[in-house]
Structures are given as C-alpha cells and as structure tokens.
C-alpha cells in the first residue's frame, strides 16, 4: 500500500524530469520508424495530387513562432511540394508573424537542389501578400476582391504590378486553399466564410489543440483533409517525400506519450486502490 500512496504523492518535478529525458534521449538515437497514414492526411494529399501542374494555390499562414514546432514542418513540406508541382503559390497570413513564418518555409524550400534548378521567380511563381488585420473580415473581403484586402504585397509592390496576380481577382481564380492554423483566426473562419460562402476547396494543418475542433468540418465535407499536429506533419512529410523535423521527432513524441500513459495508468490505479483502502 506504501507504493500506491507514494505514487499519489510523487513530486511532480520527477515527472517533469522523466518527460524531459524521454524527449531528449531519442534525439540522439537517430531512429525513425514507418508511420501509418491517417485517412484525413491521405485524402488531403490525394486532392493535391489531382490538381494539375501550374494550379493556383493560396497558402495561409495563421500561426506564430510559439506554434512553429508543430506547424512549420508541415508548412515546409507543403511549400516544397507546391514548388515541385509548379503550383502558382499565393502566400498570406491573418496572424502578424504568419507571413514571416512563410518566408522561413520558402527559404527552406530553396535549399532543395531540385527546386533551385527551377529558377523560381518571386512575383511570377510565388508571391507573399503579407499580413492584414481584420481577422475573418479579411476573408470576407477576399471573397469579392483580393486586391481590396491586400492592396500591396509584403515587399510593398502594388497588387496590379505582380504578374502572378494579374488574373487572380478572388477565390474563383484559386484552385485550392491550404490553411495552417494555431487558433483564431484560423481554420474555423476559413471554413465558415471561404468554404461555406464562396465554395473554395480547403485543406488544413492544425496544431493538435485545434485539430479536434476541425474534425466536425472534416466529417461534414467542409474540409478535404486535415493534418493534425506534429504527427500529421510527419505523415505529410512521408507522403510528399520531404522528410524533415516532424519525422525525426516522432520517436521523442512516442517516448513522451508512453511515459504519460504509464503515469496515467499508475495514478488511476493508485487512486482507486487507496480510496478502496480508506473505505
């Protein structure tokens, strides 16, 4: 009985230490393992595969650096995939730091030799419209005219002077919208306005906290696919062939989850055993 009482009274700092070690040690093991692909990730990838080369894709970066460990890997893979498929990429963000995170993804993509060889040109093959304040009202304005919402791109160039945007007036000129979201405004607002009002095809990458909120939309067909957290990012990396951080860190994630599961089970057993003893 002493053991179970000890389990209930264990200092939380030991648990913190064990979790920290379970995340740290696998980083030095260099082991990656094969991931099964979730249906929602597969459908998202399949939808992208069905887009013809040269399609216009709008990528919205609605997150900031605190959420980057989860969303940056999937964003990096998505940008690399878009460049590989010659998609015309329009980048924007409803969070102030979002477009800057996008710049990181583009820089990362440009390190790939195959993508470098394509000699992609800013303004012709991709453009970053930057951030615009207004939350979901920005999406509403974009439904009528992108230019109203983004009069200039992130470099200050007038919308009408960007070659890529010449024939892009609103959502009807966009073949797919890919949203990376860490909260509000994010996937929920894109579904409510862009999908339900303007009929866009939307795929989303969410933090694991936000992903449960997006599943009802997935079930209702308002989302074509969903990448949930780092695991979703790792699966997407596997499908696109651009394995990076999300795949590398899956082992750490697995170890940490195992530690948590063990303590949850032990804690619950200890709770019921000691309660029974008191009765």
């Amino acid at each position, binding site marked *: 009985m002493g053991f179970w009482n000890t389990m209930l009274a264990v200092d*939380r700092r030991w648990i913190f230490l064990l979790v920290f070690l379970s995340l740290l040690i696998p980083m030095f093991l260099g082991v990656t393992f094969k991931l099964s692909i979730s249906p929602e990730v597969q459908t998202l990838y399949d939808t992208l595969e*069905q*887009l*013809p080369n040269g*399609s216009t894709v709008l990528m919205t970066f609605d997150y900031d650096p*605190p959420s980057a460990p989860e969303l940056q890997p999937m964003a990096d893979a998505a940008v690399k995939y878009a460049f590989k498929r010659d998609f015309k990429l329009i980048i924007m963000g409803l969070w102030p730091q979002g477009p800057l995170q996008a710049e990181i993804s583009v820089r990362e993509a440009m390190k790939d030799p195959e993508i470098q060889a394509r000699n992609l040109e800013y303004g012709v093959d991709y453009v970053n419209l930057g951030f615009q304040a207004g939350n979901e009202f920005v999406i509403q304005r974009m439904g*009528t005219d992108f230019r109203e919402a983004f009069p200039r791109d992130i470099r200050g160039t007038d919308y009408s002077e960007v070659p890529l945007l010449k*024939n892009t*007036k*609103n*959502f*009807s*000129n966009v*073949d797919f919208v890919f949203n990376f979201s860490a*909260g*509000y405004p994010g996937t929920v607002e894109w579904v409510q306005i862009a999908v*339900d009002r303007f*009929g866009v095809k939307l795929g989303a990458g969410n933090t694991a*906290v*936000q992903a*449960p*909120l997006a599943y009802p939309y997935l079930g209702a067909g308002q989302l074509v696919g969903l990448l949930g957290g780092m695991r979703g990012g790792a699966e997407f990396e596997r499908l696109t062939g651009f394995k990076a951080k999300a795949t590398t860190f899956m082992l750490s994630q697995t170890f940490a989850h195992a530690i948590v599961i063990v303590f949850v089970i032990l804690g619950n057993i200890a709770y019921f055993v000691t309660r029974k003893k008191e009765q």
Partner: protein
Amino acid sequence: MELLRSRIIIGITLLSMVLMFGSALAQDADKRDVLDSTAVRVGTFKKPVNLPIPAQLDVVEDSEGDAGSSITVSWLPSPDDGAGKNNVIEYQILRSESQDGEYVIVGSASRGMTQFQDATTTDGVTYFYYVRTISKDGGANSQISAGIQSSPQWFNTKDLDTFIIGLIICAAVIYFIYHAQKGKKFFLRQIAGLEAVDEAIGRATEMGRSILFIPGINDMDDVQTVAGITILGRVAKTIAEYDTKINMPVSRSIVMTTARETIKQAYVAAGRPDAYSDDMVHYLTDEQFGYVAAVDGIMVREKPATCFYLGAFFAESLIMAETGNSIGAIQIAGTAMPAQLPFFVAACDYTLIGEELFAASAYLSGEPKQLGSLKGQDVGKIIAMIVILGLCGLYTVASISDSVSLLDFADKIKGLFSAS
C-alpha cells in the same frame, strides 16, 4: 453540229472536273489546316491525332444571389472525362465581349468539374462563353453561348431556408426577452459550480488570502468576456461585503477599465467606496504567453486561495490551471472554448462547460436580456432535437421498407438544412 455538241460536252466535263478538283483542293487545304494544328509529323507524313470529345455547354447564367460581377458557366462533361482514349486534363473557360470577337481564357476547372464561376465580369456588359476541353493532345471547343450579362440581386434566395431558421430563433429570443422585461419569471435549471462561488469566496476570506480573477484574454467584444465580467459583478458584491482582497490581472485595456468600473460599483453599493483601489485591476500585456507567465508568477508569490477563470481562453489555460492546482487554490473555471474545456475539467474544482458560463451569467445577474436569450436558444435546441430524431427515424423506416416516396419526402425536408 455533232462536233459542237461533243466540244460542249467535253468542255462541261472539263469544267466540272476543274470545279470538283478545286473544291477538293479547298477541302484538302482545310484538312491540312486542321492537320497542321493538331497533327504530329512522322517522317514526311502528318499523323492525325485524336482530340477529346468536347464538353457541351449546359447553362450560362448570371450567378444567383450575389452582388453582381459574376456569371456561372455550367457544362456537360466530355465523355472522355475519366474515360475514353483522350483523358481530359482540364476544362478552360473562354470569354469575349462579342460573339465573333477575340476570346480570352478567364479560368480553368479540373477534370470532373462541371461548373465555373467567372467573378471578373462588369455588370451590364454582354459576354459570350465557350468551354475548351483539354487533353494531352490538344483542345476541343464547345458551342458558343448566347450573350449574358451579370447583375446584382437584393436577396440571396439560395439562403432562404437558413434565413427562416435564423428568423425563428431570433423571434424566440425576442419573445422571451420581451416577457422577461415584463417581469415574467423563467425557470433555469441549477448549475453546479455556482453554489461553489460563495463557498470559494468564503474560503479566501477565512484564510486571509486573495482571490485571483482572470476574465480570459479576449476583449470586450467577445461575449464570453462579457459573461465573465457579469459574474465579476456578483463576485465583487460578495468580496466588498466580506472585505476580501481581489487581484485581477488583465490582458486588454478596455477590459481593465470595464472591470474597474464593475468592482468600484460593487464597493459603492456595499457602502465601502474607500476600500476600493484601482490597483485591484491591472494590465499586464496583450501577448498570450507573456500574460500567463506573469499570472503564474503572481500565483506562486501571492498564493491566492481562490482562482476564477471565466471568459475566453486559448493555450494558456492549462498553464494557469496547473499552476493554480499546484498552489492548492480552489479553482472555478468557465469557458465556451471547446479546446480548453478538457484542461479546466482536469485541473479545476468546478467547471462551467460551454453555455453554462452564459447561463451562470444570466442566473447571477438576473438580467432580462440574458435570461431571454438563454430561453430563446433553448427553442433552437428543441428544433434541432426534433429534426434530428424525426428525420433519422424517417430515414431508418424508409431504409427498412425501401419506400421511395418516403425517402423522397425525407430528402426534401433534409434538403432544407443543406445550407447550400
């Protein structure tokens, strides 16, 4: 005579031959033009290439229920779409301002699609469209449409069913608010957690420690923050009577001024205006994690006996709730953010789940508008419950009995909720 007749016959024959040859030449020339544009040269021969069977235009009309500048082009898919030798890659939509004028591509649709919305038109200008079916070998054009103009509409008839549903719910809310303002008493079920509010304040008073009140991290335009501040009014009334200390760090300046007013009013109403101090409510930062870092610091240093978390929260909620749990405070939380509820349920003593926060706000304030709104929303829930149960039953019966008429009827009613 005979000679003349034979010369005429020969002449006519020759003329006919010339005419026929000429016509054949012209046709050959046409064919050559077609072949030139689509044939593949193989040696000295041009190999004819099969183009896809073109899609046929179906309907070209002004887009319904919009603010103008939009024309919807629909077509019947090419038989080669997803089948046949010349698999369709995409459809291109071309437009011109005159039937014989120059056509430009205004957009494209993937294979399998049968509709495109051209949102770049100018109202009042007549446009002509055709659809080009593209395969790897080239494109084949549909017929050209009749002239069409785009125009705005005042009312979006596609959303009529949504409008009616919204109208019913709004009417219910207005009805109940009206009667609440007239003084009619409405029944609200008991909400667990509300009784704990007084108990929690009493605990803090007995221990001589402060109460920490967190109204969420959104601004006053969020209804959850409004609900949190309403409950603050009730809490402030009790702490003013008991002379309990309150510490309220906030992350929005407008929330700070509103909260100060609320607490000040409570102290004035309790007859103790001198006990009030503006320092009870103080601004930290708008940044989410900066705010929670400072709140955590306050918690471990001041060790409040009671923590209230009532409002809109995001990822910082777990950090706050866990720290509050570690210092042994009694914690009462309430939020309508589904993603944060699990953390509060796990770490707090009492949690107001979702709408219970608004119910608590209405219950404690007794304000007619809040009470009426809550009752009106219950009408919406009844409609949802009846529709879901009723139609599920209908579909199940139709499915078992294979009754087509019953299925059609159920489909019609279900279609009212498609919102498309």
